[in-house]
């Protein structure tokens, strides 16, 4: 699984991670503070992720 956080690649093993919620938890974030795209589509924290997926985590920045 290829994971990008705010456009930067995350160099960490995501073995065993099966859901978006699990992925966010593994990188110390929550669905309150991030939006996730899997293969270019916005998904919910209830969706699943697989080893061949390209995941983008977009932090919900404060202000603006």
């Amino acid at each position: 699984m290829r994971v990008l956080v705010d456009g930067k690649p995350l160099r960490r093993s995501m073995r065993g991670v099966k859901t978006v919620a699990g992925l966010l938890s593994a990188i110390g974030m929550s669905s309150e503070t991030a939006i996730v795209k899997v293969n270019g589509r916005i998904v919910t924290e209830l969706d699943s992720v697989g080893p061949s997926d390209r995941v983008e985590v977009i932090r919900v920045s404060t202000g603006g």
Partner: protein
Amino acid sequence: MAICSFCNRNAILYQPYSCKLFCGKHLSDLTEKRVGSTMRKYGMVRNRSRIGVAVSGGKDSTTMLYIMHRLLRKDRSRTLIAITVDEGLRGYRDKSIRCARALCSKLGVEHHIYRFSEYAVKMDTLMRHPKPDPCTYCGVFRRWVLNLAAREHGLDAIAIGHNLDDVVQTFQMNIMRNEPLRIARYTPNGGIATCDEFVPRIRPLLTVPEREVMAYALHNGIPFHNGECPYAGLALRNPVREFINSMEAKYPGTKFRMLNTYLSLIDRLPAGAAQPIRKCKLCSEPSSSETCKRCELLSYAKCKGAKWSVAKKNA
């Protein structure tokens, strides 16, 4: 894929507080409905024809402009005018201004930029000197410049992109700082004291959670800058935000319950809670005391050795 609770499309957002899933279209419908209801409920544009929209270029302000433009586009009696305040934060504000410009140009909305360097002090200059609390300075200067801009363009109100999260964080911080008068002043529609020189501020995103604003912006392809202010790390708002988000994750609906508490409190505050508005003796702008906060902060910073020149308005 999770499926929308209202149709067969793929969901892009799960709302734990309602246990419902939303596709892009239904999330957009809900968000626009919420903004429209808030504007009607508080009479935000009632009897007002020139509405200013404070657009920094971040997700909240660009989404607010986009939705207000959609809701008011058929109403020829009202004009939207976008105002951007450039605080002078290199590598941050310049990027967001590009997004604000792009959106205004796409929507055909008149856009004006006001710079701290002309009316106050650039934040980057300020931060080299007296090591103040950056958010205090920035907030005070920004409000001062916005009010001046709103008057210069004859605006009847100015919309601020404060979402549900911003409002409940501010409420929580005012409790922690023991500032009940600030709770009284921070209302959805212009505060409780009025004055000709003070342009009322409205908050159309009051009932839209921050992550839903972001999901709306991404789904609708709104150009916005998703960076964080370089000085944001120093703010009290950060731990407050973390605390409220952790409560929301554990007890969904916490933010809306806090909002309802805050709105109930405002209704119960005595009319005398508002301080009368007068004119600052130095700059003549509206102020709750003899000298406005902007002039007070500039004097303080000068005492601490900061040097700059302010082109407009006496500093």
